[in-house]
C-alpha cells in the first residue's frame, strides 16, 4: 500500500468537508439578507420610497410612513459625533505618530484598547449619568430636554473615537514618509510639516475616515435608544428629543411591524453603500494625476 494513495482519498474527502464549511458560512450570512428582503417585500408595493424618505408624516395606523424625522435624527447625531471625533482622532493620531515617545505611545495603545473594549451600553449609562446632567447645568434645563440628540451625538463621538483613531493612524502610516523628511530637511518646523505636507498628502485618506466614521456612528443603536429620546420629531434642533432609526428599532423592534424590517433594510443598504464609498476614497492616492 502506497501511503500517498489513501492520503489522496482522505484528502479529497477532507477538501469537500472544508469547502462545505465555506459554503455554510456563505449561506448563513446571505440567509440574513434574504430574510429581511422577504420581510420588507410586501411593504414596498404599498408605499412609495419617495414618501418614505422625504415625508415627515409618521402615522403607521393610517398607513402613512414618512420617515424623514427618523432619518434626520440619525444623520444629526452621527454628524455631531464625527464633528468632534474626527478632528480629535486626527490630533490623537498625530500625537501618537509624530510627538509621543515609545513609552507614552504604548500607554496610549492600552488606553485606546480599553476604550474599544467598553460596550456601547456603558457609554449610554455614562451619557445619562454624567453628560446629560452636565449639559443641563451648562445650558439650563428649560432649553435642553432630558433626552436629546446633542448628548447622544457627543457620547457617540467618544464611542467611535478609538475606531477613528485606528483609521487615522493607518492613513498617516500609509503617507509617503519621504515627503515628511524632505520638508524637515528644507527647514520647515514640525507644525509646518504636518499642516502643509503630511495632512494635505493624507487628505483623501482622511476623507474616507470621515465617511467610515459617519457610517459607524449611523449604525450605533444602544446609545441612541437610551439618550436620544423616543418618538419621531421633525426638527433640526439638537437640544430636543428625537428618535433615530436605530432607536426606533430598539424600542419597537420586537413588535415585528412592517416599519421595523423597512428600517432594517434601509440601514443595511445605507451602511453597505457608505462603506463602499469610504473604501473608494481610501483607495485614491493623492497626486496621482500629477505623475
Amino acid at each position, binding site marked *: 500500500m502506497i501511503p500517498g494513495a489513501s492520503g489522496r482519498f482522505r484528502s479529497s474527502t477532507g477538501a469537500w468537508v472544508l469547502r462545505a464549511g465555506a459554503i455554510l458560512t456563505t449561506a448563513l450570512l446571505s440567509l440574513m439578507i434574504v430574510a429581511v428582503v422577504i420581510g420588507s417585500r410586501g411593504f414596498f408595493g404599498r408605499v412609495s420610497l419617495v414618501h418614505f424618505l422625504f415625508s415627515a408624516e409618521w402615522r403607521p395606523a393610517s398607513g402613512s410612513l414618512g420617515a424623514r424625522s427618523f432619518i434626520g435624527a440619525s444623520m444629526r447625531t452621527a454628524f455631531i459625533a464625527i464633528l468632534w471625533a474626527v478632528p480629535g482622532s486626527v490630533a490623537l493620531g498625530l500625537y501618537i505618530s509624530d510627538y509621543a515617545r515609545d513609552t507614552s505611545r504604548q500607554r496610549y495603545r492600552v488606553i485606546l484598547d480599553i476604550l474599544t473594549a467598553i460596550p456601547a451600553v456603558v457609554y449610554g449609562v455614562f451619557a445619562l449619568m454624567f453628560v446629560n446632567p452636565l449639559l443641563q447645568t451648562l445650558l439650563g434645563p428649560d432649553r435642553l430636554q432630558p433626552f436629546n440628540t446633542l448628548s447622544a451625538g457627543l457620547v457617540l463621538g467618544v464611542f467611535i473615537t478609538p475606531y477613528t483613531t485606528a483609521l487615522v493612524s493607518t492613513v498617516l502610516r500609509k503617507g509617503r514618509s519621504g515627503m515628511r523628511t524632505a520638508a524637515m530637511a528644507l527647514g520647515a518646523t514640525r*507644525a509646518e510639516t504636518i499642516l502643509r505636507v503630511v495632512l494635505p498628502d493624507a487628505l483623501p485618506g482622511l476623507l474616507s475616515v470621515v465617511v467610515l466614521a459617519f457610517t459607524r456612528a449611523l449604525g450605533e443603536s444602544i446609545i441612541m435608544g437610551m439618550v436620544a429620546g423616543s418618538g419621531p420629531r421633525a426638527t433640526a434642533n439638537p437640544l430636543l428629543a428625537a428618535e433615530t432609526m436605530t432607536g426606533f428599532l430598539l424600542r419597537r423592534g420586537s413588535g415585528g411591524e412592517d416599519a421595523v424590517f423597512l428600517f432594517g433594510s434601509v440601514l443595511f443598504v445605507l451602511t453597505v453603500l457608505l462603506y463602499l464609498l469610504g473604501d473608494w476614497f481610501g483607495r485614491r492616492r493623492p497626486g496621482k494625476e500629477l505623475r
Partner: protein
Amino acid sequence: MAAYRRRIQARRRQDRLFRIAVRIASLIPVLLLLVMILTLVVRSMAADLGSEARRALHLTGLATAAAGSFWVIASGLAVSAPIALVAALWMAHPTRLSRKDPLLVGVFRTLVRQAVRIPNVVYGVFALALFLRLNALAPALGIRNLGNASILLGIIMLPNLVLMMEQELKDVPDGIDEASFALGASWVAVMVRQVLPAAAGAMGAGILRIAARMIGLASPFIVLGAPSFVSAPPAGFGDRFISLPVQIYQWAVRPESAYRGMAAFTSLVLLLCILLLDVAADTWKRRVVRRREGLR
C-alpha cells in the same frame, strides 16, 4: 535681519502652539476614561436601594443576568466556532485548497468583509424576520428564547471568528507546513494535523478576545425581544433569558434613581468581566507567541 529673526520667532511660536494643541487634544480620551469610571463608581456607591428596587434586585439579582450572558456566549460559540474553523481552514491557503472555485472565494470574502461592518442592530432585525417566518412554520421553535438568541449571536460572531482564525492559521511558521510537505503529506493532512494544532492556542486566545467583545452586546437581543423581567437563570434553550448588558439598558432607562445606581453597578461588573477576559486572552496569546519564538 530683524525682520528675518521676527519671522523665525513667529514660526517657532506657531510650532510650539501646535504642539500644545495636539497634546491637549490627546489628553481628552484619557480624561474621559477616568471620568467615566469615576461616574460609574460614584453612582453605584450612592445607589439608594429603595424597597421597590431592592425587591427587583432580590428577584432578578445579577446572577440571573450573568448566567444568561454566559449561556448565550457559550452556545453562540458552540454554534459558530466549528463552522468558522472549517471555513478558515479552507480559506487559509486559498491558492491550494480553494483554487478550484474562485467564485465561492470571491463571494465568501466579500460577504465576510462586509458582514463584520454591518451594524449589530441590523442583525437583530434580520434574525427577527427569520425567526418570525420559521415560527409560522414550526411554532415549537419559539422566537424570544435562549436558543434563537444563541443562533443570532453565533451569526454575528461568525465573520469575526473566520477572520481571526484565518489570520492565526496564516501566522503559523512556514517551516511547519514545509516540513510536512517534504514528507509527502497532502494539503488537507498538513492543515488538519500540523497547522491546526500549531494554531490552536492562538485561536483559543482569539476566541476569548471575541467573547470579550460580544459579552457587552445588547441591541440585537433587544430587537429580538428581551423580557423586562426574568426570575431565574435559563434552564434550557426554549427559556427566556436576560443578559448583563440588556439588564443595564433596562435599568438605566428607568427614571427611579435606585435603578440607575444598579445600572452603574452592573456596568462595573460587566467591565470587570470584559477586563478579565481580555487579560486572559492577552496572557494566553503572549505565551503562545513566546513558545513559537522558542521553536524558531
